[in-house]
């Protein structure tokens, strides 16, 4: 469903992605990990064209992201994305955060959009907060709303950019639970995260990145049992130490 082929990207003279390639099949969950500054976030932002690429190709559901004729807004509406800092719209109530793009991008009618929004708020357990503003919610609740906001557009796949990195420890699990349920439902997901417990539980494959390169791309069990590269071994031993 998502195919990333020899992608290069640089900011000025600094190359942040150098020749990344991987494939994600329908229903697969991929966890992307690696040290900070390794290009993980940049890579998934290239998947929905938020970041342009200099060379290579990214194809999502048969559509080439970087092609000039591609209608990027239309493609992005089908690719959900959840950000580290939630980025809910603070001037809108929770319910309006969920209906805005449904109405303005998909052209759904108000009642239809609200019905979809409420069913998703039920799913993330936040129906009773529908009429609050995002600022009145905890970080974990905000991130669940953000996930619901993306799902409201009925995306064919979801991208998660460090969805729990900005959360207090006691709120991480409520967000991960939502993501686990989503994965079990068969959603195609690319997740950038340091949560190795989550990776072990739901990821089909782990993509390990270092300095703009994908240095390891292996089934989850293989990756944790026997990482092939020294760099991945070091990384794992550091984050699994405690």
């Amino acid at each position: 469903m998502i195919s990333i082929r020899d992608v290069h990207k640089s900011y000025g003279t600094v190359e942040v992605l150098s020749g990344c390639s991987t494939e994600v099949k329908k229903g697969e969950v991929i966890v992307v990990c690696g040290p900070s500054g390794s290009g993980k976030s940049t890579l998934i932002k290239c998947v929905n064209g938020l970041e342009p690429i200099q060379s290579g190709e990214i194809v999502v559901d048969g559509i080439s992201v970087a092609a000039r004729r591609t209608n990027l807004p239309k493609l992005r509406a089908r690719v959900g994305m959840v950000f580290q800092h939630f980025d809910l719209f603070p001037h809108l109530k929770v319910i309006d955060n969920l209906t805005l793009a449904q109405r303005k991008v998909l052209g759904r009618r108000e009642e239809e959009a609200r019905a979809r929004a409420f069913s998703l708020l039920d799913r993330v357990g936040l129906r009773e907060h529908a009429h609050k503003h995002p600022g009145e919610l905890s970080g974990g609740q905000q991130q669940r709303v953000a996930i619901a906001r993306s799902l409201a557009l009925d995306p064919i796949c979801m991208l998660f950019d460090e969805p729990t990195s900005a959360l207090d420890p006691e709120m991480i699990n409520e967000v991960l639970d939502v993501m686990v349920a989503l994965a079990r439902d068969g959603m195609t997901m690319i997740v950038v995260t340091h949560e190795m417990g989550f990776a072990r539980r739901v990821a089909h494959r782990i993509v390990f990145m270092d300095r703009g390169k994908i240095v390891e791309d292996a089934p989850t069990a293989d990756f944790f049992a026997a990482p092939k590269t020294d760099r991945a071994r070091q990384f794992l031993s550091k984050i699994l130490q405690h």
Partner: protein
Amino acid sequence: MYQLDWSSIPGALPFLWQGMKISLEITLVAIAAGIFWGTILALMRLSPVRALSLLATGYVSLFRSIPLVMVLLWFFLVVPTLLRDVLGLSHATDLRLASAMVGFALFEAAYYSEIMRAGIQSVSRGQAQAALALGMRPLQAMWLVVLPQAFRNMLPLLLTQAIILFQDTSLVYVSALADFFGAAYKVGDRDGRLVEMLLFAGAVYFVICSAASFAVRRFQRRLAA
């Protein structure tokens, strides 16, 4: 010793009120049109299209570098002739009010655009990115997500600028248009009581503007709370 004599004020109040209505009319139109055009200028200035950005920068620095009273005079001289030619109006039609509004709106837009530019930049980049990720087109993201927040962040500054604008409307006296200040001047001149009338007019401006500033400050505190 000069004896102050306030007796000509009560009789002149209806005329002064007519003037005040003109002042308020110009202020409101200039605020609305100025913010609208100013926002467009701010968007042009922040646009990746270099030509648009240069055009807006040029416009803003031009209007910020010439005195308002001169802009108004130009408009009094140019706009009426232009409108008469375009719309085929007779020379009897009084277009001074219309040209004052146009002049103020164009001038204030330069200031409002700087406020809106700061406002747009005060909204975190993540907001626009989240909107784009949901499939919005760039202008949609700007209109539905960024501008409402920019506007709210900048509301105190926009209101403060509106108060300054209200005071500046007194400059329309150069066209002999009877706004509040012009009306007060005319009455004072007619009755030989210029000092009293100007003191009175000053007091009225002071009361209105300081009350408005006070309200803005309270509003700002509530916003921050």
